């Protein structure tokens, strides 16, 4: 029970990060490998502001704002000039940005992991006989669920969301129908980075922040996005939660715990073999 709920909350974190990958992929048709490092920057922001002010709320708000600004700046400076370049050029740029951010973090904060205790302080509750649950797990779950519902409604029911769908279907046609594609891409990066800020807050509960803080959850969330079907928003949620559950279940069984990461990525390979477009990915129909 606890394992499952912990798995769900870890999955929710992966899902939040995976959403950032999948939205950017769906709309800008690029893989933003610097996304994981935005999480790292968000975590350092929380750490720094929290140690200065001692106020977790301010720390978190600053972190969201910083992540959003960072996302927009990365898009404007690094990716926008390459909009017509080959996908490989964009990919390698993204990896470059990722290295740059990690290097800067090392320069400023050093390589030592620094832990922040915000949500952990909330303690734990006993929900039933012998089942003790951290409140932070519940907070993570509830907040992530709310965020995902709001995001889904935003995409489905609003003008901007509709424009995002239109851009992801046919950029040229959307532009000729009066949609400002650059603005939509910017909004996408902003939303993705804001989700990353939430993820960094939740992930900080689990491990202390270091320059490579975002690397592993980033790559796992990317795997989750691919498992769910990259470009699909519900897919990212499903993939993330699935991966989180698998990870926690594996970790709870002593015999297979050391192989957890291998099992996770094995799952990725297995799903891609059975369904190459991911669980909820769109079928690509070939026309003759």
């Amino acid at each position: 029970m606890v394992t499952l709920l912990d798995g769900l909350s870890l999955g929710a974190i992966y899902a939040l990060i995976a959403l950032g990958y999948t939205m950017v992929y769906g709309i800008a048709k690029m893989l933003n490998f610097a996304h994981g490092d935005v999480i790292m920057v968000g975590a350092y922001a929380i750490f720094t502001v929290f140690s200065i002010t001692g106020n977790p709320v301010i720390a978190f708000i600053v972190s969201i704002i910083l992540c959003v600004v960072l996302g927009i700046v990365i898009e404007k400076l690094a990716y926008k000039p390459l909009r017509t370049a080959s996908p490989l050029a964009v990919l390698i740029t993204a990896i470059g940005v990722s290295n740059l951010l990690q290097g800067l973090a090392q320069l400023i904060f050093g390589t030592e992991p620094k832990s922040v205790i915000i949500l952990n302080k909330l303690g734990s509750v006993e929900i039933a006989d012998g089942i003790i649950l951290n409140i932070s797990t519940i907070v993570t779950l509830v907040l992530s669920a709310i965020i995902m519902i709001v995001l889904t409604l935003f995409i489905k029911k609003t003008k901007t969301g509709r424009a995002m769908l239109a851009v992801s279907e046919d950029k040229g046609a959307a532009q000729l129908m009066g949609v400002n594609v650059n603005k939509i891409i910017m909004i996408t990066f902003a939303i993705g980075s804001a989700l990353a800020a939430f993820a960094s807050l939740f992930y900080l509960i689990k491990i202390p922040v270091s320059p490579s803080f975002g690397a592993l959850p980033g790559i796992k969330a990317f795997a989750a996005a691919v498992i769910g079907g990259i470009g699909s928003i519900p897919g990212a949620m499903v993939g993330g939660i699935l991966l989180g559950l698998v990870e926690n279940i594996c970790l709870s069984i002593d015999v297979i715990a050391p192989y957890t990461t291998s099992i996770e990525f094995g799952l990725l390979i297995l799903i891609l073999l059975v369904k190459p477009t991911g669980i909820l990915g769109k079928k690509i129909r070939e026309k003759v």
Partner: protein
Amino acid sequence: MAEYMLETKNLGISFGGLKAVQELNLKIKKKELYGLVGPNGAGKTTVFNIITGVYKPTTGTFLLDGEELKGKKEEVINHKGIARTFQNIRLFNNMSVIRNVMVGLHNQPEFRCDPFTSMFRLPKHFSSEKEMREKAKEILRIFNLEEERNNLACNLPYGKQRKLEIARALATNPKLLLLDEPAAGMNPSETQELMDTIRFVRDEFDMTILLIEHDMKLVSGICEEVTVLNFGQELAQGKTSDVLNNPEVIKAYLGD
């Protein structure tokens, strides 16, 4: 107010050494139904791509209602009042019919609603969404598509997809509507219905319409004036009946 809705002055574009369009001078009056015809590869769609901003012209310029739009971006040109359909239908296939039209309404000033208002679902968001939905329904009604509004665009029959493209373009509230082979692939009765719809749109919205078409019955049936392009150059221009009987034009189409 300018005399012409669309005026192109010495408009031309070359791709490397290939002069795809040269010295094109179109003068389209307000509320006119104007045809652009010519054999395959004559440069008709290229002209559309220039005046919607997809390509930048290498020579000359073009004016919409007296305002020069050369060098502007696609979405800006669309806001200024030029909307188009595509030769190969380019609907948002995995979105419902009504949402396709609502994307077209995206930039109408009366539906301005910033992402923040939407994100936090303030009252303004709901009122503006509701108005948009109503407006979209109204447009769909004109094209007899209201019943199908919740179907996915890709599930519509071909003729209706063509109509939906026109509806989506109209939703952007243009002054000038560009139709790229609207009757392509239609059967005679669908073509007849389309002709009626085009005329209706012109009369109902005081629309200026420029269309590319190969179906000469449609062109002679609804266009008041035509320009014939051949190898990127203007071959003939004038009243439809005169031009289509011009021996030069017949030669370009059928050979000697």
